[in-house]
């Protein structure tokens, strides 16, 4: 029996590879094996179906903690007024709105400082200062790029409801093939999106391409939990509770099953760091949030 088993395994592997050769390169969708085309199609369907309830599900699955994670990302970015941000897989606009808020408050403080400084200026200099740029965002812009039209629509609606209009653009695009020129952006972020990209290396190459020299790459993503006890609880919660919530709130068990499986499939912190370094970024480091449930990876273009 021991001798037979390896033989049958190798036979099925042959069969599998023959099939794969006919359909295209094999990859994974959660715990299933699919071709790359199938994967893209399936992920598109996932997001088409969850788009309307995306934010509600985020809140209920993470008990609202995802807001803190996103706040941490923008705080780490520490953008100054005049920064151009590209938020890929930015769908419903969470990062973009936080960026705008942050830049607005920094800009307010800057203008206040300038007012204080005004007390020592001559009349000539004060008159000149009236010509200066006093815009509330100081020239900062954010471009939200997503591959899924439904998610972008939800994002645009949210922007209208919350009153964000200035400095915001919405573009339909694929992270593996961005519709932008080289050396354009100061910061590139991808929050909870890189997991869904089929060819991560291409996405990272594109990120490298569109960033200016000195530009920063930031990636917020689920990662490996370091604490073993927490890991057990987390697994339990992921596989037992989340798909149920998905069925009850969004009416889609399978999409959330995919979500938790894709989290398990995603490379851990050190591996992702190596992959980012391979794409050409330097000074790559990561910061664990919530003991490794989520990690922020950061890299710079030399």
């Amino acid at each position, binding site marked *: 029996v021991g001798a037979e088993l390896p033989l049958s395994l190798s036979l099925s592997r042959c069969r599998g590879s023959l099939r794969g050769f006919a359909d295209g390169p094999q990859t994974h969708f959660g715990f299933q094996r699919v071709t790359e085309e199938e994967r893209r199609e399936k992920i598109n369907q996932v997001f088409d179906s969850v788009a309307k309830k995306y934010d509600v599900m985020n809140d209920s699955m993470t008990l609202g903690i995802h807001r803190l994670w996103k706040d941490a990302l923008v705080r780490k970015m*520490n953008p*100054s007024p005049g920064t151009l941000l590209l938020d890929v897989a930015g769908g419903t606009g969470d990062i973009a709105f936080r960026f705008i808020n942050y830049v607005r408050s920094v800009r307010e403080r800057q203008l206040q400082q300038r007012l204080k400084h005004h007390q020592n200026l001559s009349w000539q200099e004060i008159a000149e200062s009236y010509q200066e740029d006093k815009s509330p965002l100081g020239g900062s812009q954010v*471009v939200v790029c997503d591959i899924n039209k439904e998610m972008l629509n939800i994002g645009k609606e949210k922007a209208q409801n919350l009153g964000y209009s200035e400095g915001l653009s919405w573009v339909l695009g694929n992270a593996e093939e961005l519709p*932008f020129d080289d050396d354009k952006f100061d910061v590139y972020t991808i929050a909870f999106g890189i997991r869904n990209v089929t060819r991560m290396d*291409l996405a990272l*190459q594109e990120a490298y391409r569109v960033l200016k020299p*000195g530009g920063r790459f930031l990636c917020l993503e689920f990662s490996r939990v370091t604490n073993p006890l927490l890991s057990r609880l987390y697994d339990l919660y992921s596989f037992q509770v989340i798909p149920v919530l998905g069925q009850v709130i969004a009416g889609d068990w399978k999409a959330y099953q995919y979500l938790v499986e894709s989290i398990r499939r995603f490379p851990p912190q050190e591996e992702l760091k190596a992959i980012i370094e391979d794409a050409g970024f*330097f000074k790559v*480091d990561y*910061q664990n949030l919530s003991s490794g449930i989520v990690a922020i990876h950061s890299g710079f273009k030399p």
Partner: protein
Amino acid sequence: VRWQLCPPQRPLQASAVLRRVSDEHKKEPLASSSQQQFNSQPADHQPEQEPQGPDPSYTGQDGQESEDYESEEQLQHRILTAALEFVPEHGWTAEAIAEGAKTLGLSAAAAGMFQSDGSQLILHFVSQCNTKLSELLEHEQKLVQQGEAEKKPTDQFLRDAVEARLRMVIPYIEKWPQALSILLLPHNIPSSLSLLSSMIDDIWHYAGDQSTDINWYTRRAVLTGIYNTTELVMMQDSSPDFEDTWRFLENRVADAMKMGDTANQV
């Protein structure tokens, strides 16, 4: 601002292949140059690591060194040196670093490479000043050895060394109190203390101190005290060319000498 929707000129696969091929070409010379770099790195690493201080996140070691690019540390050095120019206006903050990065043609986001409280900028400046001081003292020592200058008495020597070092701070004096307060933050104390002690050690070395007993410690402790108090006096000194500060320094050094003599007599 208009975003150009330009489809890639070449098909994506071809460009990816081209990039991979060029990467492979890059990798071979890299392998040999990185070997050499690695051998010379450790020598550079030590003085660089200290000013960095403890990092809460995990940093990569050598980073990408390709073609004629400099290493991470060299780039960071250049950015911080460029940023010093903007300190009088923005203070020791991430904004000054961002402005410095912009003058080098980098995006302002490069300031994210450093901690946001500006402590790395201050430590960089302090270590630069210390290096300048060492070079100055070594130059003077050479002159004495060649017989072109006279050997100064100890108190004069100490006074001149401390004055020379403190004068380097004068261009930034308005923002220096901010810098001092940041250097005193708990997570910066190891680095700032080590820079301070190595500077004091340097001064005593060039002053000709060869003690091997308790004097080694007392002399350095006393000079550290003199330096720190003089620095504080300089912060709120408004006399022309800081005359009051130098007079204060003279008196303190004289006190220290007197104490040393009395201790010897006893």
